[in-house]
């Protein structure tokens, strides 16, 4: 945590209310997100207990499993989930825009411009917490290799239709959420703690109820008191006043309420199923409401100028997966091959650098943090001296003297970048510290092609300017070989390495599923 964020937390402690970390909203929020509040069975991998799901905050759909260890009931639940989620996901597939993209022509090997489809909007899933994102990923993994009876009539315990497809989409959302700044699948705790500093630790911020208590405390109450109640407050029966945001349940709920109700269900008592459903809904509903409360808080913030640019990448991601599904490609493999792993890592590193740069450019409060750490400087132009490069065709290289209170970590010839009002970037380099304070910067581009700089391209005395030491649109890494060309150092092509089961073979199933 940076010092400026630590300070914000301390302000929150002193005022009893969360302090802002940003002046704008740095993530895209859909007008119609799909909120998904999951709950899982303790001790089981991928055995959901229930979810509240939907796009209408007043009418969440409750899906529940009265006995999660029963495979039939689990499949029924997943089928319902697919019926509920897939229409939403597919709903963005057909409204498209056309974009021009450079592709390599397979025949000539030349780069040519082609028109490709880009979905005009994309689905957005919101879960309560980071554990919820992991759960989406886990569900995706558990479903995508299943076989339906339609795919394989002989398969034992076939999955209901659409379940494997939901698995593929959940896997895609889960992977995409690992890309810094991506917004197809977001956790509410992550969203809120990006924008507000509470008076507690980041660890405690994982609790959605406590986090909201700090950001939006009840009238007349301090955030700390409200947060402590949200964390530990229990009613006379020992049940939490604010149930956990899941997917893990509270052991007291399991032991005192759920377990007896399930026993009644197992015994075949009438009304037991409804009882289990009501219990699950009772645990999920407060979290459902909390997620929507969080959305209200976030929507009140104006979006950052470059948020739409990042959302466009999410739309590309959605479109690409839509195309893979339509083309009948197999599900994502269990583990990435060497080339895919390297590609993902490289693109995430680029996305992280872009996100860091864009957030700073969109938000003076984020930029303040970069200034404090010596990665940017704001100041006033004192003086501009015209100068030219020493080439055959001299080009303008004006020297700008800047007065600043900031202390950037500069050394000779360090590259600098100035954001221009139109969104472009002007390159420059640090020359030296000026006598009597201030520093001298040489502009190295962004002044047009002529002998004289274009009007307005060079700052003037008394202008307020910002230079960053970081690039504004950092480029991606080098091209990697095709997976079929994986070199010997990395085990050679994956096909040769994978002897035995094909990558998308279904998981083995056992006859008795009851653990």
């Amino acid at each position, binding site marked *: 945590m940076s010092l400026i964020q630590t300070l914000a937390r301390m302000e929150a402690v002193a005022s009893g209310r969360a302090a802002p970390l940003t002046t704008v909203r740095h993530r895209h929020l859909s007008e119609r997100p799909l909120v998904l509040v999951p709950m899982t069975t303790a001790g089981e991998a991928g055995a959901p207990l229930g979810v509240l799901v939907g796009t209408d905050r007043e009418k969440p759909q409750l899906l529940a499993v009265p006995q999660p260890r029963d495979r039939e009931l689990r499949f029924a639940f997943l089928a319902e989930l697919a019926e509920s989620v897939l229409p939403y996901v597919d709903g963005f597939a057909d409204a498209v825009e056309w974009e021009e993209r450079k592709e390599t022509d397979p025949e000539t090997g030349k780069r040519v411009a082609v028109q490709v489809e880009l979905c005009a909007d994309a689905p957005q899933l919101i879960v309560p917490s980071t554990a919820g994102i992991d759960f989406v990923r886990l569900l995706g993994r558990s479903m995508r290799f299943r076989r339906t009876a339609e795919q394989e009539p002989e398969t034992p315990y076939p999955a209901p239709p659409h379940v494997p497809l939901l698995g593929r989409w959940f896997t895609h959302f889960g992977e995409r959420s690992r890309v810094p700044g991506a917004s197809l699948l977001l956790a509410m705790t992550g969203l809120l703690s990006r924008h507000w500093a509470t008076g507690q630790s980041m660890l405690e911020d994982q609790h959605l109820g406590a986090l909201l208590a700090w950001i939006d405390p009840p009238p007349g109450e301090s955030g700390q008191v409200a947060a402590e109640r949200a964390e530990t407050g229990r009613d006379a029966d020992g049940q939490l006043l604010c149930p956990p945001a899941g997917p893990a349940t509270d052991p007291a709920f399991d032991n005192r309420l759920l377990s007896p109700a399930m026993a009644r269900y197992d015994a075949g008592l009438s009304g037991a199923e409804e009882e289990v459903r009501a219990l699950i809904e009772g645990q999920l509903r407060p979290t459902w409401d909390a997620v929507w409360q969080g959305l209200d808080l976030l929507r009140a913030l104006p979006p950052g100028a470059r948020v739409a640019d990042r959302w466009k990448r999410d739309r590309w991601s959605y479109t690409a997966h839509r195309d893979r599904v339509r083309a009948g490609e197999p599900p994502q493999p269990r583990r*990435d091959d060497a080339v895919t792993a390297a590609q993902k890592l490289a693109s995430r590193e680029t996305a992280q650098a872009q996100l860091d740069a864009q957030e700073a450019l969109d938000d003076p409060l984020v930029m303040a943090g970069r200034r404090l750490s010596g990665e940017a400087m704001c100041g006033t132009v004192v003086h501009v001296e015209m100068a030219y490069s020493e080439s055959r065709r001299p080009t303008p290289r004006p020297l700008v003297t800047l007065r600043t209170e900031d202390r950037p970590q500069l050394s000779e010839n360090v590259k600098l970048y100035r954001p221009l009002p139109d969104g472009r970037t002007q390159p420059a380099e640090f020359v030296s510290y000026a006598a009597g304070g201030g520093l001298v910067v040489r502009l190295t581009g962004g002044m047009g092609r002529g002998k004289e700089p274009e009007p307005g391209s060079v700052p003037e005395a008394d202008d307020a300017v910002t230079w960053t030491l970081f690039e504004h649109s950092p480029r991606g890494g080098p*091209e990697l070989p095709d997976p079929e060309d994986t070199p*010997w*150092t990395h085990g050679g092509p994956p096909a040769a390495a994978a002897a035995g089961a094909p990558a998308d073979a279904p998981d083995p199933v056992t006859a008795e599923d009851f653990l």
Partner: protein
Amino acid sequence: MTRPDGRTSLPAQRGERSFDPAAAAAAATDAILHDTLHGTRRGVVVDSPPGAGKSTLVVRAARELAAAGRPLMVVAQTNAQVDDLVLRLADKDPGLPVGRLHSSEANAFDPALAELPSVRTSAKIADLAGMDIVVSTAAKWAYTKVDTPWGHAIVDEAYQMRSDALLSVAGLFERALFVGDPGQLDPFSVVGADQWAGLAYDPSSSAVATLLAHNPDLPQHRLPVSWRLPASAAPLVSDAFYPYTRFRSGTDHGDRRLAFGVAGDGSGVDRVLDEAAESGWGLLELPARHTPRTDPEAVRATALVVRRLLDRGGAATSENSPDPVPLTADRIAVGTAHRDQAAAVRAALSDLGVHGVTVDTANRLQGREFDVTVVLHPLSGRPDATAFHLETGRLCVLASRHRHACIVVCREGVAELLDEHPSTEPVQLGVTVKFPDGWEANHAVLAHLAEHRVRWRP
């Protein structure tokens, strides 16, 4: 003793009198060159502890390959390393055609290369066709395309190269010699890479880790002798950081000497200088206090140590020259953990009128060598230890740059800080455990430094 991976290492240094460092090093080099030139495997891996002659080996292997009529490419990690290699190659063989492939940005390479008659520089690989040896960074090679791959490559600083960087260049060569120091800082990623942990080709792991996971039976060698580290330092660095692959100093106690023309004034700074001159190590210990990273007292003490090193007319005697060589600013380095600490030390040195001393972070001091180093201890004054500050490689780099002496400036209380450090690290299945961990290595170094401690209140 036997490593967990089955490799055997040298017998311990102590108690074996007949050890001939030059012969041991020559035998290791011969075996490496034999495998490189005549071996049948696609790769050869060489572990080189600090100052064991890695650059010399790379230059020699490159020249021998070239002499055998086998052109090769050399991959290094930074532009400075590439320039240094080209200069060394030209120095050994001024007529050897060497290409320096560089980026298209301004000041992409050392201007000194332009003076060398047989060295050609270009940003385009086509311009360098026909050169016996072409040298560049991994980053530049990754953007290079060739029709036929090179028969041979040398990959330098391979432990600091990330697996994904090797992936993007490995298609350029048929076979390669991988050379590096396993004890220095590991490569890292700014974004999470946990999902690939345990995979042989985890893109965030080191190139050598991936290479050996896929090719476990490649010949692996080790340079057994550090020519840089004095006899006072090799055992500690070897024990603390290379417990399974011990190495020894090429020189003996008494082969190197550091002396001052001016007697000490009795201050803590002078006393620690005398201790370091005498024993090779010195710990200047300031009173315990929690401070931010740029602790003004520790920074000033560090600068003062350097100032006095110069003022007292230090002179170094070594096997390199029969006469004492004056200890000048360019033979001294200050090492820190963070960039802002380095900046603060630079400013403090400038206030004291000292110029020309290298001041940098452990990251940037990797691969470099000085007569005397002054180290601001990474844990000095810290209220907590973090994985960054405990990283074994960081301390290893800082404690192994010197030929004569290393002086550590530190606040009291680091031992307690280490004791109170929580050990609740997550464990990834299938990931080879790095051992010793930072905790152990830090304690080992501290215990040794305690024997050379001078307490001082600035």
